[in-house]
């Protein structure tokens, strides 16, 4: 084992963790600012110029706040749950490639922590662990609202993970690999010299399902059932305060960043962009811009759509997203086999066309169901 290699891993892991923590802090500011602008307000602007010190003020406040543990809570699990929630959110980003290899002072540096050959599977499995943290936080609080929030969160995350996984499958099939680096490599290059070969163009509906499912996966509006303030006070973190609350909060926002990074990698070309082959340091810049835009999408959707009812959330997950994403897997497979069989990559265009048709049928069916008179009464 090369000592220099271990040192490199340590430094890269440390830097990535720091970037994620800083990203989390400034994501809260970004969200508050963007929401404020959408609502014709200015947003935080008192702590430092344009409010840039606001996250630091928030952190200081949370650290010095009193930490309460309910008398009848399960102390060990109550303390463990925030940690269990935050660790997967940070660890999940280990397989995301942030850029191509750099050569710094003659040292060859890979801009990822681990090059796992089943990277997508790793993401799916680590993302599922986060559910444990949330359900344990809800259960150990010994509070009925927290319990309800935790259970809702579990049911919702497990249901939407299926659609999420199936939308990953289409990207994996198109790239022919589960390795994140190879998925990014498969998206480099251009059609007709100007259209980037991103999977969002080959599989637009799969990308849409991914984006919807991630909203449910990170418990964001309009799928923020586990934290529905009007019904459950604050959901699974009702009883948490101080630093433990900060950890749960951090897990939520870090997961937003992680899932945006994964989405950018799988469907939006990862670190690919113009001139990235000539200037490799542009890679992290491009993926940062893509993450920034995807995060804006999440905030934008939060500012626009109201929370949907819980039974409809589950019905949408199981009765709409699951069949559509299964159909997409089939369509993608057919498109790839056609292209291989006739040795003509133009036939890949079957995939987006057929996918959009399926999505159109799904939209029409959902619309018809929602318009049925007896549905509203149920």
């Amino acid at each position, binding site marked *: 084992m090369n000592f220099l290699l271990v040192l490199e891993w340590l430094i890269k892991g440390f830097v990535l963790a720091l970037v994620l923590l800083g990203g989390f802090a400034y994501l809260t500011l970004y969200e508050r600012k963007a929401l404020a*602008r*959408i609502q014709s*307000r*200015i947003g935080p602007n008192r702590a430092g110029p344009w409010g840039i010190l606001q996250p630091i003020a928030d952190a200081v406040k949370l650290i010095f706040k009193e930490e309460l543990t309910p008398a009848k809570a399960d102390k060990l699990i109550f303390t463990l749950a925030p940690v269990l929630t935050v660790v997967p959110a940070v660890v999940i980003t280990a397989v995301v490639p942030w850029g191509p290899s750099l050569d710094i002072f003659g040292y060859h540096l890979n801009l990822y922590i681990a090059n796992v050959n089943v990277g997508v599977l790793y993401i799916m499995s680590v993302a599922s662990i986060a559910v444990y943290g949330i359900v344990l936080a809800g259960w150990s609080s010994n509070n009925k609202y927290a319990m309800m929030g935790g259970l809702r969160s579990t049911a919702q995350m497990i249901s939407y993970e299926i659609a999420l996984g199936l939308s990953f499958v289409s990207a994996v099939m198109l790239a022919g690999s589960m390795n994140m680096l190879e998925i990014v490599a498969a998206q480099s290059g251009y059609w007709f010299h100007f259209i980037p070969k991103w999977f969002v163009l080959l599989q637009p509906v799969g990308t849409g399902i991914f984006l919807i499912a991630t909203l449910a996966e990170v418990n964001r509006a309009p799928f923020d059932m586990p934290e529905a303030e009007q019904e459950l006070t604050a959901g699974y973190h009702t009883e948490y305060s101080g630093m433990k609350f900060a950890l749960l909060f951090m897990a939520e926002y870090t997961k937003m960043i992680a899932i945006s990074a994964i989405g950018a990698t799988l469907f939006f070309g990862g670190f690919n962009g113009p001139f990235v082959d000539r200037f490799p340091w542009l890679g992290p810049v491009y993926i940062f811009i893509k993450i920034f835009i995807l995060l804006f999408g999440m905030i*934008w959707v939060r500012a626009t759509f109201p929370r949907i009812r819980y039974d409809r959330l589950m019905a949408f997950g199981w009765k709409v997203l699951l069949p559509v994403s299964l159909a997409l897997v089939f369509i993608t497979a057919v498109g790839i086999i056609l292209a291989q069989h006739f040795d003509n990559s133009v036939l890949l265009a079957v995939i987006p066309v057929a996918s959009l048709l399926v999505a159109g049928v799904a939209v029409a069916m*959902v619309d018809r169901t929602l318009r049925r008179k007896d549905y509203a009464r149920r």
Partner: protein
Amino acid sequence: MRVVEPVVELARGLWTTLRMMFDKPVTIQYPEQKKPVKARFRGRHVLNRYENGLEKCIGCALCAAACPADAIFVESSENTDEQRYSPGDRYASTYEINMLRCIYCGFCEDACPTEAIILGDQYELSFTDRRQSIYPKEMLIQPVPAGGKPTPQKTEPGVYTRSVPEMKDPQD
């Protein structure tokens, strides 16, 4: 079959919120910028003076009687020509308003026969102690206008015999 319309409806919602991002924010940066209050705004009370510096308040305690929250306490004493605070026989030697009780209804303003008490435009009231919520006369009374003399004044006998002045109907 509605295929495009549901998606268009969702997109219209998103477009509405996105368009609002480019609107001018309506925020007023409060401690630095203040919005002027309306003409009939009912803020913290002030006790007025005549142009010569005499207090308008004659200590009749009609405001205290009108007050639905029982926030006003008035104690009156006799005026003399040697030590004159207000026209007429009596003046308010103690005048206190409990700002925690006051509901800013303006009934005291309506009850006042001399237009002495007015709900002004001051709305920045804060205190850290219950005792500080009781505003004494010194805090409520207006400063002496230019050309006037501070109270108590020494006045000619037989001039200020009338406690309620001749007044016109209010314009506002």
